[in-house]
C-alpha cells in the first residue's frame, strides 16, 4: 500500500547529485513525493519563482512552500519526519556530520569538478587536489571520528553517507572519461570499501542513474567544455 501523501514535490535534475541526495533521503524515510524534472537550459517558471536567488535544483515543495539547498532540505526532512533519522543523536556527532558535509561541498566536490573542467595541462594538479581531500576522509575513516564504522552514520546510512555518496559515483565516471585514476583502492582502501557498500544499498541502487547514462552525459559536457576553451584561445 502506498504511503500516505505528505504533499511533497521535488524539482530536480536527473544528473544532479544534489537532487539525488534528496531523492535518497525521501526514499530512506519512506516518503511519497511528486517529481518534476527540470531542464536546466530552460528553467521552469516554478523553479524561478521558488528559488529566485540561486535558480538551482533541488527545490523541495512541502504543502507548496519551498525548502532550498540540499543539506538544508535534509535537515528539514529529519526535523519534520524524525523516523529513520539521518542526523546522529549526540550533539558532537552532529557537529562532525555537519563539518564533513561542509568539506564535501566546499572542498572535495569542487576539486572533483575541477578535474573534469581542467584542460590537459592542469589535470595533474587538479587530480592531486582530489587526492589531498580524499586523504582527509580516509584518515577520518582510519583513525579519526569515523574509525571502525561501516558507514559514516554507523551501521546504517546517515546524512554524511547521503551527501558524500551521492556524488561519489562521478569519480568512476570521470576516471573513465578523463582517463585518470582518482580512487586507487590501495591508496584509499577504506573510502573505496565504504563507497562499494554504499552503492550496494537497495535504496541507493534505485536512485543513482545507470553508469552508461552518466558516461554519455559526462562525455557530452567534456566535449562542450573543450570546444568552448579552444574557441577562447
Amino acid at each position, binding site marked *: 500500500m502506498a504511503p500516505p501523501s505528505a504533499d511533497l514535490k521535488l524539482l530536480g535534475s536527473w544528473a544532479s547529485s544534489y537532487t539525488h541526495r534528496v531523492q535518497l533521503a525521501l526514499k530512506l524515510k519512506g516518503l511519497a513525493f511528486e517529481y518534476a524534472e527540470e531542464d536546466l537550459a530552460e528553467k521552469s517558471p516554478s523553479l524561478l519563482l521558488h528559488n529566485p*536567488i540561486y535558480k538551482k535544483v533541488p527545490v523541495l515543495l*512541502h504543502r507548496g*512552500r519551498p*525548502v*532550498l*539547498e540540499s543539506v*538544508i*532540505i535534509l*535537515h*528539514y526532512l529529519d*526535523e*519534520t519526519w524524525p523516523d529513520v533519522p539521518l542526523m546522529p543523536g549526540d*550533539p*558532537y556527532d*552532529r*557537529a562532525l556530520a*555537519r*563539518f564533513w558535509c*561542509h*568539506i564535501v561541498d566546499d572542498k572535495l566536490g569542487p576539486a572533483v569538478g575541477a578535474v573534469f573542467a581542467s584542460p590537459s595541462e592542469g589535470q595533474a594538479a587538479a587530480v592531486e587536489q582530489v587526492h589531498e581531500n580524499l586523504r*582527509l576522509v580516509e584518515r577520518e575513516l582510519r583513525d579519526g571520528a569515523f574509525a571502525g564504522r561501516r558507514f559514516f552514520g554507523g551501521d546504517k546510512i546517515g546524512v554524511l553517507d547521503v551527501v558524500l555518496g551521492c556524488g561519489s559515483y562521478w569519480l568512476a565516471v570521470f576516471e573513465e572519461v578523463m582517463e585518470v585514476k582518482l580512487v586507487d583502492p590501495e591508496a584509499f582502501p577504506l573510502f573505496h570499501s565504504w563507497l562499494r557498500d554504499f552503492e550496494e544499498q537497495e535504496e541507493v541502487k534505485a536512485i543513482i542513474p545507470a553508469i552508461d547514462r552518466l558516461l554519455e552525459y559526462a562525455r557530452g559536457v567534456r566535449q562542450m567544455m573543450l570546444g568552448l576553451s579552444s574557441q577562447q584561445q
Partner: protein
Amino acid sequence: MADQSKGVKLYGTSFNGHTTMVDCALRLKGVAYEYVEEDRKNKSEALLKLNPVHKQVPVLVVDGKPIAETLIILQHIDDVWKDPPFLPEDPYKRAKVRFWADFVSKKVVPIMHTVVASKGDEQKTAAEEFAGYLMTMEDGIREELWTGGPFVNGDSPGLLDVVMGSSYMWIKFIEAVVGVKVAKREKTPLLCSFMEAFVELDAVKELMTPPEVLLQRRMGNPSA
C-alpha cells in the same frame, strides 16, 4: 545559567568577525569559557592540531573535542546549551534561518572581503553588490521570518541576529572606507533595527569594536 561542568575553550583572533560571532553566542548563552588569542601570522601548535583541515580560527573546544567552521560552531552551541534557543521551533522557519545564514556565508562575507581589498571602481561595484545582498536579505527576512522584533528570532537574539549583529561594526567600517552607505535605513529598516538592537545588548556590548578603531587599524595596514 552558566554550565561549569564542561571545559570550554575558544581559539580566536581579535578583529575577526567570525571569532566575534562565536564569542557573542557563548555570552548570550551564559557559557563559562576560556578565550585563547591566536596570532594569525604565527599559529599555535594547538590550533593546527585542533583544526588540521582549515588551520583557522575560530575553533571551539568542548570537553577536549574541537569543532571548526563558524556556522557549525554556532549550531553546536545551540544544540548543547538550549537556553535561550537560537532557532525557531518550526522546521520550515528553521530551514529559512539556515538558508539566510548560508547566504551570509556564500555571498555577504566574500563581498565584504572584496570591498575591503579592492580600490576605485572595483570597490564601488563591490559595495553596490553588497548593498544588493543586504536588500535581498531584508526582503527574505520580512517575508519569511519577521514577527515584530526586536530580533529576527523574536524577543531574544538567534542565529541570524548573532551573525549579522556581530558584523554590524564591520558594515559601518566598510561604509566609512568606501564613503557610501551600504545598509540604508530606508532600504533595509529591519536589518538596521535588529543589528542596532543586537550591539546594544549587555552580554555582547564590550565585544563590539567601534568602526573608528577598525579604521585606525586599516590606516596602519591597508589590507585590513
